[in-house]
Protein backbone atom coordinates (compact mmCIF):
# COMPACT_ATOMS: atom_id res chain seq x y z
CA UNK A 1 0.00 0.00 0.00
CA UNK A 2 2.51 2.55 -1.14
CA UNK A 3 -0.06 4.90 -2.54
CA UNK A 4 -1.88 7.85 -1.09
CA UNK A 5 -4.29 5.55 0.65
CA UNK A 6 -1.55 4.73 3.05
CA UNK A 7 -0.41 8.30 3.15
CA UNK A 8 -3.83 9.13 4.57
CA UNK A 9 -2.99 6.91 7.51
CA UNK A 10 0.46 8.38 7.93
CA UNK A 11 -0.62 10.96 10.45
CA UNK A 12 -1.10 8.09 12.89
CA UNK A 13 1.61 5.88 11.50
CA UNK A 14 3.61 6.07 14.72
CA UNK A 15 3.24 3.21 17.17
CA UNK A 16 1.71 4.53 20.38
CA UNK A 17 3.11 3.27 23.65
CA UNK A 18 1.96 2.83 27.22
CA UNK A 19 -1.64 2.76 28.35
CA UNK A 20 -2.74 5.00 25.47
CA UNK A 21 -1.76 2.30 23.00
CA UNK A 22 -4.47 0.08 24.46
CA UNK A 23 -7.10 2.58 25.63
CA UNK A 24 -7.30 4.55 22.39
CA UNK A 25 -6.12 1.88 19.99
CA UNK A 26 -7.51 1.82 16.49
CA UNK A 27 -5.05 -0.84 15.36
CA UNK A 28 -6.74 -4.13 14.50
CA UNK A 29 -3.90 -6.21 15.94
CA UNK A 30 -3.90 -4.41 19.29
CA UNK A 31 -7.68 -4.57 19.54
CA UNK A 32 -7.53 -8.25 18.54
CA UNK A 33 -4.98 -8.87 21.30
CA UNK A 34 -7.18 -7.10 23.84
CA UNK A 35 -10.16 -9.23 22.81
CA UNK A 36 -8.13 -12.42 23.12
CA UNK A 37 -6.66 -11.53 26.52
CA UNK A 38 -10.10 -10.46 27.76
CA UNK A 39 -11.65 -13.73 26.59
CA UNK A 40 -8.90 -15.76 28.30
CA UNK A 41 -9.56 -13.93 31.58
CA UNK A 42 -13.28 -14.56 31.22
CA UNK A 43 -12.57 -18.21 30.38
CA UNK A 44 -10.91 -18.57 33.76
CA UNK A 45 -13.63 -16.61 35.60
CA UNK A 46 -16.32 -18.78 33.98
CA UNK A 47 -14.13 -21.83 34.57
CA UNK A 48 -13.85 -21.06 38.29
CA UNK A 49 -17.63 -21.03 38.46
CA UNK A 50 -17.66 -24.42 36.71
CA UNK A 51 -15.24 -25.70 39.36
CA UNK A 52 -17.65 -24.59 42.10
CA UNK A 53 -20.49 -26.35 40.27
CA UNK A 54 -18.49 -29.58 39.94
CA UNK A 55 -17.30 -29.37 43.56
CA UNK A 56 -20.90 -29.08 44.73
CA UNK A 57 -21.91 -32.03 42.55
CA UNK A 58 -18.96 -34.19 43.61
CA UNK A 59 -21.22 -35.94 46.11
CA UNK A 60 -24.97 -36.00 46.68
CA UNK A 61 -26.21 -33.59 49.32
CA UNK A 62 -25.39 -29.93 49.83
CA UNK A 63 -21.63 -29.53 50.39
CA UNK A 64 -20.23 -26.08 49.83
CA UNK A 65 -22.75 -23.50 48.59
CA UNK A 66 -26.40 -22.74 49.17
CA UNK A 67 -28.81 -23.53 46.31
CA UNK A 68 -29.40 -19.86 45.43
CA UNK A 69 -25.67 -19.28 44.96
CA UNK A 70 -25.40 -22.54 43.02
CA UNK A 71 -28.09 -21.31 40.64
CA UNK A 72 -26.17 -18.04 40.25
CA UNK A 73 -23.07 -20.05 39.39
CA UNK A 74 -24.93 -22.00 36.70
CA UNK A 75 -26.45 -18.81 35.26
CA UNK A 76 -23.39 -16.59 35.27
CA UNK A 77 -21.03 -19.41 34.17
CA UNK A 78 -23.08 -19.71 30.98
CA UNK A 79 -23.32 -15.95 30.36
CA UNK A 80 -19.60 -15.46 30.98
CA UNK A 81 -18.53 -18.37 28.81
CA UNK A 82 -20.85 -17.54 25.90
CA UNK A 83 -20.68 -13.73 25.84
CA UNK A 84 -17.36 -13.23 27.61
CA UNK A 85 -15.12 -16.08 26.50
CA UNK A 86 -16.12 -17.74 23.23
CA UNK A 87 -17.66 -14.79 21.35
CA UNK A 88 -14.89 -12.27 22.18
CA UNK A 89 -12.25 -14.89 21.35
CA UNK A 90 -13.83 -15.27 17.91
CA UNK A 91 -13.99 -11.49 17.45
CA UNK A 92 -10.39 -11.21 18.61
CA UNK A 93 -9.29 -13.71 15.99
CA UNK A 94 -11.36 -11.89 13.37
CA UNK A 95 -9.73 -8.59 14.30
CA UNK A 96 -6.24 -10.00 14.16
CA UNK A 97 -6.57 -12.14 11.09
CA UNK A 98 -9.23 -10.81 8.70
CA UNK A 99 -7.39 -7.62 7.61
CA UNK A 100 -4.13 -9.51 7.03
CA UNK A 101 -5.94 -12.41 5.36
CA UNK A 102 -7.66 -10.15 2.83
CA UNK A 103 -4.79 -7.69 2.37
CA UNK A 104 -6.51 -4.73 4.03
CA UNK A 105 -4.63 -1.97 5.87
CA UNK A 106 -6.89 -2.27 8.93
CA UNK A 107 -10.53 -2.84 9.84
CA UNK A 108 -12.97 -0.62 7.95
CA UNK A 109 -14.11 1.35 11.00
CA UNK A 110 -11.21 1.41 13.45
CA UNK A 111 -12.72 3.81 16.02
CA UNK A 112 -15.89 1.77 16.21
CA UNK A 113 -13.67 -1.26 16.64
CA UNK A 114 -12.13 0.33 19.72
CA UNK A 115 -15.55 1.18 21.11
CA UNK A 116 -16.98 -2.29 20.55
CA UNK A 117 -14.14 -3.76 22.59
CA UNK A 118 -14.25 -1.29 25.48
CA UNK A 119 -18.00 -1.69 25.94
CA UNK A 120 -17.41 -5.28 27.00
CA UNK A 121 -15.43 -4.76 30.23
CA UNK A 122 -18.16 -2.31 31.34
CA UNK A 123 -20.87 -4.83 30.51
CA UNK A 124 -19.13 -7.55 32.50
CA UNK A 125 -18.48 -5.17 35.38
CA UNK A 126 -22.27 -4.68 35.49
CA UNK A 127 -22.92 -8.43 35.35
CA UNK A 128 -20.24 -9.62 37.76
CA UNK A 129 -20.91 -6.71 40.14
CA UNK A 130 -24.29 -8.28 40.88
CA UNK A 131 -22.57 -10.88 43.06
CA UNK A 132 -22.07 -8.13 45.64
CA UNK A 133 -25.67 -6.90 45.57
CA UNK A 134 -28.61 -7.58 47.79
CA UNK A 135 -30.33 -10.71 46.50
CA UNK A 136 -27.18 -11.91 44.76
CA UNK A 137 -26.40 -12.45 41.11
CA UNK A 138 -28.99 -13.56 38.54
CA UNK A 139 -29.98 -17.16 39.21
CA UNK A 140 -32.76 -17.86 36.73
CA UNK A 141 -30.59 -19.49 34.08
CA UNK A 142 -28.84 -17.83 31.13
CA UNK A 143 -32.08 -18.21 29.14
CA UNK A 144 -33.75 -15.68 31.48
CA UNK A 145 -37.18 -17.29 31.24
CA UNK A 146 -40.00 -15.32 32.83
CA UNK A 147 -41.64 -15.46 35.31
CA UNK A 148 -38.64 -16.96 37.17
CA UNK A 149 -36.17 -14.31 36.04
CA UNK A 150 -38.51 -11.56 37.24
CA UNK A 151 -37.85 -12.78 40.78
CA UNK A 152 -34.22 -11.65 40.45
CA UNK A 153 -33.43 -8.99 43.06
CA UNK A 154 -31.54 -5.79 42.49
CA UNK A 155 -29.36 -7.58 39.97
CA UNK A 156 -32.15 -7.65 37.38
CA UNK A 157 -31.64 -4.30 35.63
CA UNK A 158 -27.88 -4.85 35.70
CA UNK A 159 -28.36 -8.17 33.94
CA UNK A 160 -30.61 -6.58 31.33
CA UNK A 161 -28.27 -3.67 30.64
CA UNK A 162 -25.24 -5.96 30.54
CA UNK A 163 -27.00 -8.02 27.85
CA UNK A 164 -27.90 -4.84 25.94
CA UNK A 165 -24.31 -3.59 26.03
CA UNK A 166 -22.95 -6.95 24.94
CA UNK A 167 -25.45 -6.95 22.08
CA UNK A 168 -24.40 -3.45 20.98
CA UNK A 169 -20.75 -4.47 21.13
CA UNK A 170 -21.42 -7.60 19.04
CA UNK A 171 -23.47 -5.72 16.44
CA UNK A 172 -20.78 -3.06 16.05
CA UNK A 173 -18.15 -5.78 15.67
CA UNK A 174 -20.29 -7.55 13.07
CA UNK A 175 -20.86 -4.35 11.06
CA UNK A 176 -17.11 -3.74 11.07
CA UNK A 177 -16.34 -7.21 9.79
CA UNK A 178 -18.89 -6.98 6.96
CA UNK A 179 -17.66 -3.52 5.89
CA UNK A 180 -14.04 -4.70 6.03
CA UNK A 181 -14.59 -7.79 3.92
CA UNK A 182 -16.84 -6.15 1.35
CA UNK A 183 -14.97 -2.86 0.98
CA UNK A 184 -11.34 -3.44 1.89
CA UNK A 185 -10.14 -6.53 0.03
CA UNK A 186 -6.84 -6.38 -1.88
CA UNK A 187 -6.93 -6.55 -5.67
CA UNK A 188 -7.40 -10.12 -6.81
CA UNK A 189 -8.98 -11.22 -3.52
CA UNK A 190 -12.29 -12.25 -5.02
CA UNK A 191 -15.08 -13.52 -2.81
CA UNK A 192 -14.43 -17.11 -3.85
CA UNK A 193 -10.76 -16.75 -2.97
CA UNK A 194 -11.46 -15.62 0.57
CA UNK A 195 -9.97 -17.89 3.20
CA UNK A 196 -12.69 -20.04 4.79
CA UNK A 197 -12.10 -18.34 8.15
CA UNK A 198 -13.09 -15.02 6.57
CA UNK A 199 -16.14 -16.55 4.89
CA UNK A 200 -17.38 -18.12 8.11
CA UNK A 201 -16.93 -14.80 9.91
CA UNK A 202 -18.84 -12.80 7.28
CA UNK A 203 -21.74 -15.22 7.58
CA UNK A 204 -21.49 -15.12 11.38
CA UNK A 205 -21.57 -11.31 11.24
CA UNK A 206 -24.86 -11.41 9.32
CA UNK A 207 -26.22 -13.86 11.90
CA UNK A 208 -25.22 -11.43 14.67
CA UNK A 209 -26.95 -8.49 13.01
CA UNK A 210 -30.11 -10.49 12.49
CA UNK A 211 -30.30 -12.21 15.87
CA UNK A 212 -28.81 -9.85 18.49
CA UNK A 213 -31.56 -7.20 18.12
CA UNK A 214 -34.09 -9.94 18.82
CA UNK A 215 -32.40 -10.76 22.13
CA UNK A 216 -32.21 -7.07 22.92
CA UNK A 217 -35.94 -6.75 22.15
CA UNK A 218 -36.75 -9.72 24.40
CA UNK A 219 -34.80 -8.39 27.38
CA UNK A 220 -36.21 -4.88 26.89
CA UNK A 221 -39.67 -6.43 27.12
CA UNK A 222 -38.61 -8.21 30.33
CA UNK A 223 -37.46 -4.87 31.72
CA UNK A 224 -40.74 -3.14 30.90
CA UNK A 225 -42.71 -6.08 32.30
CA UNK A 226 -40.86 -5.76 35.60
CA UNK A 227 -40.69 -1.99 35.99
CA UNK A 228 -43.19 -0.31 33.65
CA UNK A 229 -46.33 -2.39 34.06
CA UNK A 230 -46.41 -4.02 30.63
CA UNK A 231 -47.57 -7.60 30.22
CA UNK A 232 -45.64 -9.03 27.29
CA UNK A 233 -44.94 -12.22 29.22
CA UNK A 234 -47.37 -11.87 32.10
CA UNK A 235 -50.38 -14.18 31.69
CA UNK A 236 -52.41 -12.20 34.25
CA UNK A 237 -52.18 -9.14 32.02
CA UNK A 238 -52.96 -10.98 28.80
CA UNK A 239 -49.36 -11.81 27.91
CA UNK A 240 -47.72 -15.18 27.39
CA UNK A 241 -44.54 -16.46 29.08
CA UNK A 242 -44.06 -18.95 26.23
CA UNK A 243 -43.73 -15.98 23.86
CA UNK A 244 -40.45 -15.17 25.59
CA UNK A 245 -39.18 -18.66 24.90
CA UNK A 246 -40.03 -18.31 21.21
CA UNK A 247 -38.29 -14.95 20.98
CA UNK A 248 -35.31 -16.03 23.06
CA UNK A 249 -34.67 -19.14 20.98
CA UNK A 250 -35.20 -17.25 17.73
CA UNK A 251 -32.04 -15.51 18.90
CA UNK A 252 -30.63 -18.48 20.79
CA UNK A 253 -30.30 -20.99 18.02
CA UNK A 254 -28.51 -18.68 15.57
CA UNK A 255 -26.35 -17.79 18.58
CA UNK A 256 -25.20 -21.42 18.70
CA UNK A 257 -23.96 -21.01 15.13
CA UNK A 258 -22.42 -17.63 15.96
CA UNK A 259 -20.27 -19.57 18.41
CA UNK A 260 -19.46 -22.49 16.13
CA UNK A 261 -19.19 -21.11 12.56
CA UNK A 262 -15.90 -19.25 13.22
CA UNK A 263 -14.66 -22.54 14.72
CA UNK A 264 -15.54 -24.25 11.42
CA UNK A 265 -13.51 -21.58 9.66
CA UNK A 266 -10.50 -22.15 11.91
CA UNK A 267 -10.58 -25.90 11.31
CA UNK A 268 -10.88 -25.27 7.56
CA UNK A 269 -7.64 -23.26 7.74
CA UNK A 270 -5.70 -25.70 9.89
CA UNK A 271 -6.47 -29.08 8.31
CA UNK A 272 -5.25 -28.15 4.78
CA UNK A 273 -2.05 -26.69 6.30
CA UNK A 274 -1.08 -29.86 8.13
CA UNK A 275 -2.44 -32.24 5.48
CA UNK A 276 -0.49 -30.23 2.87
CA UNK A 277 -3.45 -30.36 0.52
CA UNK A 278 -5.96 -27.76 -0.61
CA UNK A 279 -9.27 -27.79 1.21
CA UNK A 280 -11.55 -30.37 -0.39
CA UNK A 281 -14.72 -28.78 -1.77
CA UNK A 282 -14.04 -25.09 -1.04
CA UNK A 283 -17.24 -23.88 -2.74
CA UNK A 284 -19.36 -26.52 -1.02
CA UNK A 285 -17.89 -25.39 2.32
CA UNK A 286 -19.00 -21.82 1.64
CA UNK A 287 -22.49 -22.90 0.58
CA UNK A 288 -22.77 -25.31 3.50
CA UNK A 289 -21.88 -22.53 5.95
CA UNK A 290 -24.47 -20.23 4.40
CA UNK A 291 -27.08 -23.02 4.46
CA UNK A 292 -26.42 -23.71 8.14
CA UNK A 293 -26.79 -19.99 8.88
CA UNK A 294 -30.09 -19.68 7.00
CA UNK A 295 -31.53 -22.89 8.45
CA UNK A 296 -30.59 -21.76 11.95
CA UNK A 297 -33.50 -19.29 11.84
CA UNK A 298 -36.07 -22.05 11.29
CA UNK A 299 -35.30 -24.49 14.09
CA UNK A 300 -35.69 -22.47 17.27
CA UNK A 301 -38.62 -24.42 18.70
CA UNK A 302 -36.60 -27.64 19.02
CA UNK A 303 -35.44 -26.08 22.32
CA UNK A 304 -39.02 -26.03 23.55
CA UNK A 305 -40.68 -29.23 22.32
CA UNK A 306 -42.06 -29.86 25.80
CA UNK A 307 -43.96 -26.58 26.23
CA UNK A 308 -46.94 -27.94 24.34
CA UNK A 309 -46.54 -26.96 20.69
CA UNK A 310 -49.07 -28.07 18.07
CA UNK A 311 -48.06 -31.43 16.60
CA UNK A 312 -47.52 -29.96 13.13
CA UNK A 313 -45.21 -27.38 14.62
CA UNK A 314 -43.22 -30.05 16.41
CA UNK A 315 -42.92 -32.06 13.20
CA UNK A 316 -41.80 -28.99 11.23
CA UNK A 317 -39.11 -28.10 13.74
CA UNK A 318 -37.96 -31.70 14.01
CA UNK A 319 -37.50 -32.05 10.23
CA UNK A 320 -35.89 -28.61 9.91
CA UNK A 321 -33.45 -29.62 12.64
CA UNK A 322 -32.62 -32.87 10.86
CA UNK A 323 -31.99 -30.83 7.71
CA UNK A 324 -29.10 -28.93 9.35
CA UNK A 325 -27.25 -32.24 9.65
CA UNK A 326 -26.88 -32.24 5.84
CA UNK A 327 -24.64 -29.15 5.38
CA UNK A 328 -22.86 -30.00 8.64
CA UNK A 329 -22.20 -33.47 7.26
CA UNK A 330 -20.82 -31.87 4.09
CA UNK A 331 -18.32 -30.00 6.22
CA UNK A 332 -17.18 -33.03 8.20
CA UNK A 333 -16.92 -35.02 4.96
CA UNK A 334 -14.81 -32.28 3.37
CA UNK A 335 -12.43 -32.11 6.34
CA UNK A 336 -11.92 -35.86 6.23
CA UNK A 337 -11.53 -35.79 2.45
CA UNK A 338 -8.91 -33.02 2.80
CA UNK A 339 -6.88 -35.32 5.01
CA UNK A 340 -7.31 -38.27 2.66
CA UNK A 341 -3.90 -39.16 1.19
CA UNK A 342 -2.46 -35.95 2.63
CA UNK A 343 1.11 -35.73 3.93
CA UNK A 344 -0.08 -35.15 7.45
CA UNK A 345 1.95 -34.07 10.45
CA UNK A 346 0.53 -33.73 13.92
CA UNK A 347 1.60 -30.46 15.47
CA UNK A 348 -0.60 -29.18 18.30
CA UNK A 349 -2.99 -27.10 16.13
CA UNK A 350 -3.65 -30.19 14.01
CA UNK A 351 -4.19 -32.36 17.10
CA UNK A 352 -6.80 -29.91 18.42
CA UNK A 353 -8.37 -29.74 14.95
CA UNK A 354 -8.61 -33.54 14.71
CA UNK A 355 -10.07 -33.74 18.21
CA UNK A 356 -12.55 -31.07 17.14
CA UNK A 357 -13.73 -33.08 14.13
CA UNK A 358 -14.28 -36.22 16.21
CA UNK A 359 -15.70 -34.67 19.37
CA UNK A 360 -17.82 -32.02 17.66
CA UNK A 361 -19.35 -34.83 15.62
CA UNK A 362 -20.25 -36.64 18.86
CA UNK A 363 -21.89 -33.42 20.05
CA UNK A 364 -23.65 -33.10 16.71
CA UNK A 365 -25.06 -36.60 16.91
CA UNK A 366 -26.37 -36.11 20.45
CA UNK A 367 -27.93 -32.91 19.08
CA UNK A 368 -29.70 -34.96 16.44
CA UNK A 369 -30.99 -37.25 19.18
CA UNK A 370 -32.34 -34.23 21.05
CA UNK A 371 -33.90 -32.94 17.84
CA UNK A 372 -36.18 -35.98 17.57
CA UNK A 373 -39.37 -34.72 19.18
CA UNK A 374 -40.64 -37.84 20.99
CA UNK A 375 -37.17 -38.70 22.25
CA UNK A 376 -36.64 -35.14 23.49
CA UNK A 377 -39.52 -35.59 25.89
CA UNK A 378 -37.25 -37.92 27.86
CA UNK A 379 -33.99 -36.00 27.41
CA UNK A 380 -35.33 -32.47 27.89
CA UNK A 381 -33.78 -30.59 30.83
CA UNK A 382 -31.57 -33.56 31.79
CA UNK A 383 -27.79 -33.87 31.94
CA UNK A 384 -27.91 -35.33 28.43
CA UNK A 385 -28.51 -31.78 27.21
CA UNK A 386 -25.61 -30.53 29.34
CA UNK A 387 -23.34 -33.21 27.85
CA UNK A 388 -24.52 -32.35 24.32
CA UNK A 389 -23.89 -28.64 24.40
CA UNK A 390 -20.57 -28.99 26.20
CA UNK A 391 -19.37 -31.37 23.48
CA UNK A 392 -20.40 -28.75 20.93
CA UNK A 393 -19.10 -25.72 22.79
CA UNK A 394 -16.11 -27.01 24.73
CA UNK A 395 -14.66 -29.83 22.64
CA UNK A 396 -16.07 -27.97 19.63
CA UNK A 397 -15.72 -24.21 19.88
CA UNK A 398 -13.09 -24.02 22.64
CA UNK A 399 -10.91 -26.74 21.08
CA UNK A 400 -11.03 -24.85 17.76
CA UNK A 401 -10.04 -21.65 19.58
CA UNK A 402 -7.14 -23.49 21.23
CA UNK A 403 -6.14 -24.85 17.83
CA UNK A 404 -6.22 -21.32 16.39
CA UNK A 405 -4.17 -19.95 19.28
CA UNK A 406 -1.38 -22.48 18.66
CA UNK A 407 -1.69 -22.04 14.89
CA UNK A 408 -1.36 -18.26 14.90
CA UNK A 409 0.71 -17.65 18.09
CA UNK A 410 4.01 -17.79 16.16
CA UNK A 411 2.59 -15.28 13.65
CA UNK A 412 1.38 -12.97 16.44
CA UNK A 413 4.42 -13.12 18.71
CA UNK A 414 7.28 -13.93 16.33
CA UNK A 415 8.25 -16.90 18.51
CA UNK A 416 7.48 -20.61 18.29
CA UNK A 417 5.60 -21.94 21.29
CA UNK A 418 6.88 -24.91 23.29
CA UNK A 419 5.59 -27.81 21.18
CA UNK A 420 6.23 -30.45 23.84
CA UNK A 421 4.27 -28.60 26.53
CA UNK A 422 1.55 -27.78 24.01
CA UNK A 423 1.13 -31.47 23.18
CA UNK A 424 0.88 -32.26 26.90
CA UNK A 425 -1.78 -29.52 27.14
CA UNK A 426 -3.65 -31.10 24.24
CA UNK A 427 -3.65 -34.62 25.65
CA UNK A 428 -4.66 -33.45 29.14
CA UNK A 429 -7.47 -31.36 27.63
CA UNK A 430 -8.70 -34.08 25.29
CA UNK A 431 -8.67 -36.82 27.92
CA UNK A 432 -10.17 -34.85 30.79
CA UNK A 433 -12.80 -33.06 28.71
CA UNK A 434 -14.15 -36.51 27.88
CA UNK A 435 -13.87 -37.72 31.48
CA UNK A 436 -15.78 -34.57 32.41
CA UNK A 437 -18.60 -34.69 29.89
CA UNK A 438 -19.03 -38.24 28.59
CA UNK A 439 -20.49 -39.60 31.88
CA UNK A 440 -23.05 -36.79 31.78
CA UNK A 441 -24.73 -38.55 28.85
CA UNK A 442 -25.40 -41.53 31.12
CA UNK A 443 -26.59 -39.28 33.94
CA UNK A 444 -29.05 -37.63 31.58
CA UNK A 445 -30.32 -40.91 30.18
CA UNK A 446 -30.82 -42.12 33.75
CA UNK A 447 -32.94 -39.06 34.41
CA UNK A 448 -30.76 -36.62 36.35
CA UNK A 449 -32.18 -33.10 35.84
CA UNK A 450 -29.89 -30.19 35.02
CA UNK A 451 -29.47 -27.08 37.19
CA UNK A 452 -29.77 -28.84 40.56
CA UNK A 453 -27.27 -28.62 43.45
CA UNK A 454 -28.29 -31.95 44.98
CA UNK A 455 -29.28 -35.28 43.45
CA UNK A 456 -30.40 -38.80 44.15
CA UNK A 457 -27.65 -41.22 45.29
CA UNK A 458 -28.07 -43.36 42.18
CA UNK A 459 -26.25 -40.62 40.23
CA UNK A 460 -23.29 -40.41 42.63
CA UNK A 461 -20.63 -42.43 40.76
CA UNK A 462 -20.88 -40.74 37.38
CA UNK A 463 -21.00 -37.33 39.05
CA UNK A 464 -17.82 -38.08 40.97
CA UNK A 465 -16.04 -39.15 37.76
CA UNK A 466 -17.34 -36.07 35.96
CA UNK A 467 -16.13 -33.76 38.75
CA UNK A 468 -12.68 -35.34 38.79
CA UNK A 469 -12.48 -34.82 35.03
CA UNK A 470 -13.62 -31.23 35.54
CA UNK A 471 -10.95 -30.42 38.12
CA UNK A 472 -8.23 -32.01 35.98
CA UNK A 473 -9.42 -30.19 32.85
CA UNK A 474 -9.57 -26.89 34.73
CA UNK A 475 -6.06 -27.23 36.18
CA UNK A 476 -4.60 -28.32 32.83
CA UNK A 477 -5.74 -25.03 31.28
CA UNK A 478 -3.23 -23.21 33.48
CA UNK A 479 -0.60 -24.91 31.35
CA UNK A 480 -2.02 -23.08 28.33
CA UNK A 481 -1.50 -19.72 30.06
CA UNK A 482 2.09 -20.70 30.87
CA UNK A 483 2.74 -21.75 27.25
CA UNK A 484 1.30 -18.48 25.91
CA UNK A 485 3.29 -16.30 28.33
CA UNK A 486 6.47 -18.27 27.56
CA UNK A 487 5.86 -17.80 23.84
CA UNK A 488 5.20 -14.07 24.17
CA UNK A 489 8.37 -13.56 26.21
CA UNK A 490 10.70 -15.51 23.92
CA UNK A 491 11.52 -18.74 22.19
CA UNK A 492 12.74 -19.91 18.83
CA UNK A 493 12.23 -17.21 16.18
CA UNK A 494 9.32 -17.89 13.89
CA UNK A 495 9.68 -17.36 10.15
CA UNK A 496 7.05 -15.46 8.18
CA UNK A 497 5.79 -18.71 6.69
CA UNK A 498 5.74 -20.49 10.12
CA UNK A 499 4.06 -23.68 8.83
CA UNK A 500 5.41 -25.37 5.73
CA UNK A 501 1.96 -26.15 4.36
CA UNK A 502 0.26 -22.82 5.15
CA UNK A 503 -1.18 -20.79 2.29
CA UNK A 504 -2.59 -17.26 2.22
CA UNK A 505 -1.67 -13.60 2.53
CA UNK A 506 -1.04 -13.67 6.28
CA UNK A 507 1.97 -15.94 5.78
CA UNK A 508 3.61 -13.50 3.36
CA UNK A 509 4.10 -11.03 6.23
CA UNK A 510 6.88 -11.22 8.78
CA UNK A 511 6.24 -12.78 12.19
CA UNK A 512 5.13 -10.71 14.02
CA UNK A 513 3.60 -8.59 11.25
CA UNK A 514 4.54 -4.89 11.09
CA UNK A 515 2.32 -2.47 13.03
CA UNK A 516 0.68 -1.39 9.76
CA UNK A 517 0.44 -4.62 7.86
CA UNK A 518 0.82 -4.01 4.14
CA UNK A 519 3.08 -1.23 2.87
CA UNK A 520 2.51 -2.34 -0.71
CA UNK A 521 -0.65 -3.51 -2.32
CA UNK A 522 -0.43 -7.30 -2.04
CA UNK A 523 -0.98 -9.25 -5.21
CA UNK A 524 -3.43 -12.04 -4.72
CA UNK A 525 -3.12 -14.92 -7.13
CA UNK A 526 -4.68 -18.34 -7.18
CA UNK A 527 -1.28 -19.88 -6.51
CA UNK A 528 -0.90 -17.83 -3.33
CA UNK A 529 -4.21 -18.97 -1.94
CA UNK A 530 -3.99 -22.61 -2.95
CA UNK A 531 -1.58 -25.36 -3.91
Amino acid at each position, binding site marked *: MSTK*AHADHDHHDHKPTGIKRWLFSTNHKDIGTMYLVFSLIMFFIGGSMAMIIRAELFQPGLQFVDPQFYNSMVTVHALVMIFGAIMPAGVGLANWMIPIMIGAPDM*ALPRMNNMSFWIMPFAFALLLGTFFMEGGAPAGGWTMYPPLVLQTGKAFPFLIFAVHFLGISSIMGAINIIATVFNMRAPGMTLMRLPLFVWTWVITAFLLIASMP*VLAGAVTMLLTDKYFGTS*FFNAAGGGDPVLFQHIFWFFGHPEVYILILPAFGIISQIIPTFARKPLFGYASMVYATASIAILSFFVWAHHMFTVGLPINGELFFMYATMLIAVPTGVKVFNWVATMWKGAMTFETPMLFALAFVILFTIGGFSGLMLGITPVDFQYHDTYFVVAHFHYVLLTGAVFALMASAYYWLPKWTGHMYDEKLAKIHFWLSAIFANVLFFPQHFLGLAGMPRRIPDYSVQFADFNMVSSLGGFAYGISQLLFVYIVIKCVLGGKKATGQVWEGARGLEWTLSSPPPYHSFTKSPKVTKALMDY
Partner: protein
Amino acid sequence: MVKKVFENNNEIVKKRNKCLALILGLIAFSLYVGFILSNMK
Protein backbone atom coordinates in the same frame (compact mmCIF):
# COMPACT_ATOMS: atom_id res chain seq x y z
CA MET B 1 -14.18 -0.81 -5.78
CA VAL B 2 -11.77 -3.04 -3.93
CA LYS B 3 -8.81 -1.76 -5.90
CA LYS B 4 -9.61 1.78 -4.86
CA VAL B 5 -8.40 1.14 -1.31
CA PHE B 6 -4.92 1.05 -2.74
CA GLU B 7 -5.39 3.51 -5.54
CA ASN B 8 -5.76 6.97 -4.29
CA ASN B 9 -9.43 6.79 -3.37
CA ASN B 10 -9.35 6.27 0.33
CA GLU B 11 -12.06 8.87 0.91
CA ILE B 12 -14.47 6.98 -1.31
CA VAL B 13 -13.78 3.77 0.57
CA LYS B 14 -14.23 5.53 3.91
CA LYS B 15 -17.54 6.93 2.71
CA ARG B 16 -18.69 3.54 1.54
CA ASN B 17 -17.64 1.95 4.83
CA LYS B 18 -19.66 4.49 6.79
CA CYS B 19 -22.63 4.12 4.46
CA LEU B 20 -22.64 0.33 4.77
CA ALA B 21 -22.25 0.58 8.55
CA LEU B 22 -25.19 2.98 8.72
CA ILE B 23 -27.40 0.69 6.64
CA LEU B 24 -26.52 -2.38 8.71
CA GLY B 25 -26.97 -0.43 11.93
CA LEU B 26 -30.39 0.76 10.82
CA ILE B 27 -31.38 -2.78 9.91
CA ALA B 28 -30.33 -3.97 13.38
CA PHE B 29 -32.15 -1.10 15.13
CA SER B 30 -35.35 -1.57 13.11
CA LEU B 31 -35.30 -5.29 13.93
CA TYR B 32 -35.02 -4.37 17.62
CA VAL B 33 -37.83 -1.83 17.58
CA GLY B 34 -39.91 -3.91 15.15
CA PHE B 35 -39.73 -6.96 17.36
CA ILE B 36 -40.97 -5.05 20.38
CA LEU B 37 -43.72 -3.24 18.47
CA SER B 38 -44.94 -6.43 16.80
CA ASN B 39 -45.47 -8.00 20.21
CA MET B 40 -47.58 -5.13 21.51
CA LYS B 41 -51.32 -5.56 21.58
